[in-house]
């Protein structure tokens, strides 16, 4: 068990407050466009505002979900596997954030 209770608590809530409006924006965008074809989706994502908000939504989600899964790991996983799973959790979260950010950057510029 890592002694990071307070900082995790604050990081979880701070990111959740920022994620709520981003989730609302995402849902609104999906409602507006539905299942878009390539051209429509590309036109939408090439606008810097959409690319930026999309990348931010993904990056903050990665930050938030890493802490959440870490809590689940600490609750259910035996000591021998904890370190390895925590490392995989970090790698997966960083990969998601980088993929989203890099794709958004390529799309917008």
């Amino acid at each position, binding site marked *: 068990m890592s002694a990071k209770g307070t900082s995790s608590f604050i990081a979880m*809530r701070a990111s*959740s*407050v920022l*994620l*709520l409006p981003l*989730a*609302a924006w*995402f*849902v609104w965008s*999906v*409602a507006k466009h*539905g*299942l*878009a*074809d*390539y051209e429509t*989706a*590309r036109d939408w*994502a090439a606008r810097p505002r959409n690319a930026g908000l*999309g*990348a931010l*939504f*993904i990056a903050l*989600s*990665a930050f938030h*979900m890493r802490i*959440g*899964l870490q809590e*689940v790991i600490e609750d259910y996983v035996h*000591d021998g596997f904890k370190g390895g799973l925590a490392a995989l959790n970090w790698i*997966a979260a960083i990969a*998601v*954030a980088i*993929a*989203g950010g*890099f*794709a*958004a950057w*390529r*799309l917008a510029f």
Partner: protein
Amino acid sequence: MAKPIGAAADRPLSPHLQIWRWTPTMAASILHRATGLALYAGAALLAGWFAALAIGPKVFSPAADFLASPFGLVILFGFAWSLFFHSLNGLRHLYWDSGRGLRPKTALMTSWLVFAASLIGAAALFAPILIGWS
């Protein structure tokens, strides 16, 4: 952590899931964690969608076709409902963090509210897609 030899077996276990009578508040608590895990996959899916879009139509179109298939739509509906549920129940958690809404009656009412609103939200988001699809 080292365990004293032979000590673990004799201790009584706490009652497990099937012992408890299910309550809406308990279900909401479990579903908050379950939808959180689902959204982990959802975030990866969204990042993959962006990446496919950036790479080009050769990667994007087959992925989009799969997501528009019945199986893909089930995944997307699960993603959408999870996002609605986790966001709304997260709002409930933030309200609790302010020290309010913790009376059993209030917590019960807000759990029903979150179930209903998340289902309505996901259904409303999907209705136009399903009408366009069939």
